[in-house]
């Protein structure tokens, strides 16, 4: 790549213009599946960010050593390894989060975001850009998941990060912590996000 990459731009695009959740709709399953609370969303986001970052780093480091034709399998192995590491670490040290996230941790492997980034960015760019890209995309993902989780938690449980701000018996929109709520909340959040990002970008 001859083009000089503007690192700030590179970082910001993952958060706004190419937000993986609201704009690109990547990795929808964990996005919808684990965001019943802000904390879960954050946890999943961070786990994904970690895998994304590490695999981007590794891919970027060894990109010259991999013959292009076995690229994809190599990437899959790398990603899966990191996912397994995350899985084991969570199980050992943050067991309750491990339980909450459940099946969606191994599924980070198939999150298109990660393979997509490895394939279309890290394997072509230098280490530093790849790190910035991974951070941008990953943080975009974390932010989106946290916002979604927070929205659902506020509406559904009347709390945020487990801190309840309504009385114990208050009526909350339970629907939002149930599956339909995930879809509906994301639908309206993405409308909002698009409105805002169009405004800020123009």
């Amino acid at each position: 790549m001859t083009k000089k990459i503007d690192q700030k731009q590179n970082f910001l695009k993952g958060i706004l213009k190419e937000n993986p959740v609201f704009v690109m709709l990547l990795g929808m399953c964990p996005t919808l599946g684990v965001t019943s609370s802000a904390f879960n969303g954050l946890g999943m986001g961070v786990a994904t960010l970690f895998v994304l970052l590490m695999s981007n780093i590794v891919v970027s480091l060894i990109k010259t050593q991999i013959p292009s034709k076995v690229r994809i399998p190599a990437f899959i192995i790398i990603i899966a390894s990191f996912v397994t590491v995350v899985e084991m670490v969570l199980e050992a040290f943050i067991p309750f989060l491990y339980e909450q996230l459940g099946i969606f941790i191994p599924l980070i492997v198939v999150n298109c975001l990660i393979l997509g980034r490895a394939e279309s960015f890290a394997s072509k760019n230098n280490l530093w850009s790849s790190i910035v890209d991974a951070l941008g995309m990953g943080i975009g993902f974390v932010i989106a998941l946290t916002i979604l989780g927070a929205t659902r938690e506020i509406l559904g449980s009347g709390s945020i990060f487990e801190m309840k701000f309504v009385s114990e018996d208050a009526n909350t929109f339970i629907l939002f912590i149930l599956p339909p709520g995930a879809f509906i909340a994301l639908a309206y959040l993405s409308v909002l996000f698009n409105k805002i990002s169009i405004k800020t970008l123009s």
Partner: protein
Amino acid sequence: MEYIIIIIAAIFVNNIVLAQFLGICPFLGVSSKVSTSVGMSGAVLFVMTIATIASYLLHQYVLIPFGLDYLRTITFILVIAALVQMVEIILKKVSPPLYKALGVFLPLITTNCAVLGVAILAIGLEDASLLKAVIFAIANSIGFALAIIVFSSIREQLELANIPEGMKGVPINLLVAGLLSLAFLGFTGLV
């Protein structure tokens, strides 16, 4: 009876897409036409079954005996990806016209989280046996088929609606999925 419960649970109560959030990408992505959705469902049926058989065998007879439980994720994804791709290659070699017709009709399917997810869930079933795991996989793929076919028919109809500008595209699709999922809550407690 046990199998019936598994089947009803997987199709209606815990629908893989609408309640478990697996396979959302193909659900949102390959559902603009009913006929493609039907084709996709057939493909998913096959892929889920073969993936479940392979990963069940791998898990039960390799990973557990050797205490390599923790390699579940990485080995499953490799085996499933390889198997699915191999089928495609074989198909291409064995019957080019068939392969051609498929290519015109469907996007290639590779591993997605529905397939991997079902494989992982299947080995975690209570009193798992191969047959049970396979039935679980089949039931889930039927659940997937049901959801995606209904969803694609709704999308076909919405193409003619005057959706407000901001809701067009992704939001309205998510909203429909949400309302579908809301409707399916009615099946709560069937099993």
